[in-house]
């Protein structure tokens, strides 16, 4: 039984990381204002949202299963306060930090209309911190750390985000970049 919990915990963690990666890439795609992969612009935004929510679901299962797994030695406080855990406190702490950030990202996004654009946007930049912290946690924490398949998954995730970031920084990123009068300020 405890083995099953351990496998479920690790498995959902990896799936959550992959979904988080998809959410980041789709978020960058949504920012471009372009239709992508046959999806209309509002579709890209919706898939980004759904990937994030699905990542949160798998993250939730990941946390709950590990809470009940004796090998993980997780207390409830470790789910929220980072770096105080018994098993690999640093790497576990990164996971706690990432999940705290993801919780805030999702909460603020669901309440976007109430918060207003400026506040929402300031918090949403934290996504660029949450993702690498989650990757580091995944690589440093699990008993699979060192295993080839996990490193391969992480490598693909990192490559995808780096490619998306390179696209983000290019001058053909937004659909309207070439069409518009250059004005001061970064939007």
């Amino acid at each position, binding site marked *: 039984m405890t083995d099953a919990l351990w496998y479920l915990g690790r498995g959902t963690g990896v799936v959550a990381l992959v979904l988080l990666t998809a959410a980041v890439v789709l978020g960058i795609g*949504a*920012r471009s*204002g372009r239709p992508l992969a046959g999806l209309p*612009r509002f579709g890209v*935004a*919706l898939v980004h949202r759904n990937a994030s929510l699905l990542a949160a679901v798998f993250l939730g299962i990941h946390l709950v299963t590990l809470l009940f797994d004796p090998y993980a030695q997780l207390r409830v406080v470790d789910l929220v306060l980072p770096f105080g855990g018994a098993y690999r406190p640093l790497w576990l702490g990164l996971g706690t930090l990432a999940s705290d950030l993801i919780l805030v990202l999702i909460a603020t996004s669901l309440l976007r209309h109430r918060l207003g*654009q400026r506040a929402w946007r300031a918090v949403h930049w934290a996504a660029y911190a949450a993702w690498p912290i989650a990757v580091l946690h995944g690589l440093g924490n699990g008993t699979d750390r060192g295993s080839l398949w996990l490193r391969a998954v992480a490598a693909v995730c990192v490559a995808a985000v780096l490619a998306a970031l390179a696209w983000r920084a290019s001058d053909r990123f937004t*659909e*309207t970049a070439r*069409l518009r009068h250059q004005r001061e300020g970064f939007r």
Partner: protein
Amino acid sequence: MKLHIDWTACDGRGLCTELLPELLDRDEWGYPLPRDGNPEPAVPAGLDAPARRAAAQCPRLALRLVP
């Protein structure tokens, strides 16, 4: 119901022009162009739901429905 566009927030991302094509065209720079020429286009009863969706989805919170 009318659609109010906050032009200082709008970045011409175009989601609203996809969700409300009957009401909004898009100009050469990407910004929404009300088809009836009204700065605050009237939303007919049948388009109430898509208009709400457009206001909810706008990535810049530049749209709102006003009475």
